[in-house]
């Protein structure tokens, strides 16, 4: 055991010095233990493969940047790295649990697309166009108040001030504008809902 540890330490030293073959020996020597350890915790070949790869990428980076300082304890060090990566994997999965489609559970029951689809967008565009046409038919004073209130978001006080009428007149024009709109919609049987 001590010989192996000594050899590991020597191989690590050689690898840091630039001997790529030392890494081949280290991986060949410990791949089974490390991969077996990861697989025992993960129970998934592909995932274990990924974590094994990430583990050694970390090992390579640490050794190449001269940050390794645990001489003689190479295997426990690598095992600790893989253990931390396994923990990271489980932590990540807890935050984003995997949902599988079954007979009782449909993934689409929890996934909702909130943005309007093409059909809904076209319908609202058509409604908007129809509404614009009807508004154009209104008498000028009523149309003016309605556009300022609905599209330009002015308050009735501001509308009264800008148009030079009392607030009651502005409110009255708005009321008649809405009544007239309703009349036209009913008369022409226009549907303004999606």
């Amino acid at each position, binding site marked *: 055991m001590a010989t192996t540890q000594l050899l590991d330490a020597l191989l690590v030293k050689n690898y840091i010095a630039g001997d790529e073959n030392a890494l081949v020996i280290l991986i060949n020597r410990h*791949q*089974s233990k490390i991969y077996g350890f990861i697989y025992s915790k993960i129970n998934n070949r592909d995932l274990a493969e990924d974590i094994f790869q990430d583990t050694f990428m970390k090992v390579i980076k640490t050794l190449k940047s001269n940050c390794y300082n645990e001489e003689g304890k190479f295997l426990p060090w690598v095992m600790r790295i893989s253990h931390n990566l396994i923990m990271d994997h489980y932590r990540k999965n807890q935050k984003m649990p995997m949902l599988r489609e079954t007979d009782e559970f449909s993934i689409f029951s929890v996934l909702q697309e909130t943005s309007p689809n093409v059909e809904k967008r076209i319908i609202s565009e058509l409604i908007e166009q129809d509404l614009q046409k009807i508004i154009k038919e209104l008498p000028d004073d009523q149309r003016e108040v309605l556009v300022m209130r609905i599209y330009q978001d002015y308050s009735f006080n501001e509308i009264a001030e800008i148009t030079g009428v009392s607030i009651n007149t502005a409110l009255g024009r708005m009321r008649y504008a809405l009544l007239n709109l309703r009349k036209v919609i009913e008369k022409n049987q226009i549907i303004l809902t999606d």
Partner: protein
Amino acid sequence: MAKLYSKNALATSKLLPKKETISFLLKYSKALNIVKMGGINFEFIAN
């Protein structure tokens, strides 16, 4: 003498990563070069 059929079945094969994974790691190691400049490690990957 009766043959023992259970021996092979009970023998557990060693779990090993794919050869491609090992090959990738060795290539990655050869390609990676880390240079320390002013306390910061710069990683270079050769093509």
